[in-house]
């Protein structure tokens, strides 16, 4: 017998895809440049001017300091959400009474605007890094709990029965059956939570912080430095794209390579 024949479905190759994406980017920049000719720079600065500003910010070290300040806060809030949310989701999923009791809390938490969390955070923590961290936490937590909870519901009882016939301990069953079954749910929740967390951290920083990308955006906008606003916006989008393409997407492909639909 031979190894199974790989059924490869022809999707556009890497090169064509890269070419397409570059063309799109170029098109957007050209459109932006054309529009900037007709508008005053405090409404729409030209791409060249923004690029210049970006270079300046990078050179002074300002750019990376603030990007990493914000990233660090997002990660901190996200980490606390994972530490609380994973056991919380497992607990709610494994105890029916507890689950149905707390069920209404999550959708309610999801409807609370991040601006409201930010205002509470300012009341409680003032202008401090805790403010954006708290807002990220409160946004990420329900997403992670909900997804992990769903994951526990999706654990196949037949696999648990298999673990029983193999005389696995409770811990071993948790480790070898539950964790791998829940992982895809956790991952999609975590990804969502991270994306949301990044966005709301900017809101929180514009309202209640004295550093970070959100703070600098607010500062630039107060001084009507439109080119700076653009520079920060582009920098933060670029950072998210790098994290997504460079880290999350390959990680997901690796973790879930066993799935039929994920091809490496």
């Amino acid at each position, binding site marked *: *017998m*031979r*190894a*199974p024949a790989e059924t490869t479905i022809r999707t556009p190759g890497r090169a064509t895809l890269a070419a397409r994406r570059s063309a799109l980017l170029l098109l957007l920049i050209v459109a932006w440049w054309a529009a900037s000719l007709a508008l005053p720079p405090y409404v729409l600065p030209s791409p060249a001017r923004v690029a210049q500003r970006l270079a300046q910010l990078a050179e002074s070290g300002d750019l990376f300091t603030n990007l990493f300040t914000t990233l660090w806060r997002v990660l901190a809030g996200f980490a606390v959400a994972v530490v609380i949310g994973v056991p919380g989701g497992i607990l709610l999923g494994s105890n029916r009474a507890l689950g149905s009791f707390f069920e209404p809390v999550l959708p309610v938490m999801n409807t609370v605007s991040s601006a409201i969390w930010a205002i509470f955070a300012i009341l409680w923590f003032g202008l401090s890094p805790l403010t954006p961290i708290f807002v990220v936490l409160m946004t990420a937590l329900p997403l992670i709990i909900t997804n992990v909870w769903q994951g526990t519901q999706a654990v196949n009882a*037949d*696999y648990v*029965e*298999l673990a*029983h*016939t*193999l*005389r*696995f301990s409770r811990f*071993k069953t948790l480790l*070898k*059956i539950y964790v*791998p079954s829940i992982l895809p749910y956790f991952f999609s929740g975590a990804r969502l939570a991270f994306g949301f967390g990044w966005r709301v951290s900017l809101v929180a920083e514009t309202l209640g912080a004295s550093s970070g990308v959100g703070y600098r955006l607010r500062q630039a906008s107060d001084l009507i430095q439109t080119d700076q606003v653009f520079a920060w916006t582009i920098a933060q989008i670029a950072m998210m794209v790098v994290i997504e393409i460079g880290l999350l997407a390959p990680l997901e492909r690796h973790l*879930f*390579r*066993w*799935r*039929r639909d994920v091809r490496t």
Partner: protein
Amino acid sequence: MTPPAAHVAHPDQRQALAFRHVSKQFPRGDGGALEVLRDVSFDVPAGSVVSILGPSGSGKSTLLNMAAGLLAPDQGRVLVLGHETTGTVDWSRLGYMFQDDRLLPWRTAIDNVGLALETGSIGRREKRERSQAQLSLVGLGDFASAYPHQLSGGMRSRVALARSLVTEPDILLMDEPFSRLDAQTRTTMHTELLRIHRERGMSIVFVTHDVEEAVILADHIVMFSPRPGRVHTELAVELPHPRLGTPDALSLVAELRAAIAGMSADWVI
């Protein structure tokens, strides 16, 4: 302190499994009870292939779950290698193969086989070697790193078989393991199973509702009546292998089918 000689248990190792007056009921939603097994007694001699043949719902899976110690009988006793299942039994001497292949989709073939070795203190390397050897035994030596979704139904079934064999069990419990395969693949699996049985000499309890499958595989057939499951007929099959399509096997199949027709009209094949 040594117990008095008269109290020393001398487990009867000639019987791999023994069912003694086993009865089982399940509680029903309406407060009543569903009687699934009634006073079932029979033996599985060590090294033999015993097929439990019965219609769907006659308690065959329930009986296997009792043999595997997952369920306790309401009345009666189940003995594994002479030891009562409610006491201490070395469960590693049992292998279990389900109706579905029940492979973990996130594990490769070799890691699915290795799962059965992850209870004890077996090291990584030994686990790999033993799993690989088992895969080769079932003809899948080259597919160690394939994921379940990349394998055909027959191949998945082989991986499941390898997983139940990797602990080198003395008793293999099989619950309609090939019922979802097409006829040709099923026949191949029968041949494989009999070959492995010849090599290893373990006892096999093979549950099926397919008369032909029972006749092809079994040294003994225990035929169950419809629910509540009782032992209807026990017979020894003393035909040489391979049996598929031989006149003797065909006439035995016909004979058993006639007996079933007399027993119940609603035997589900």
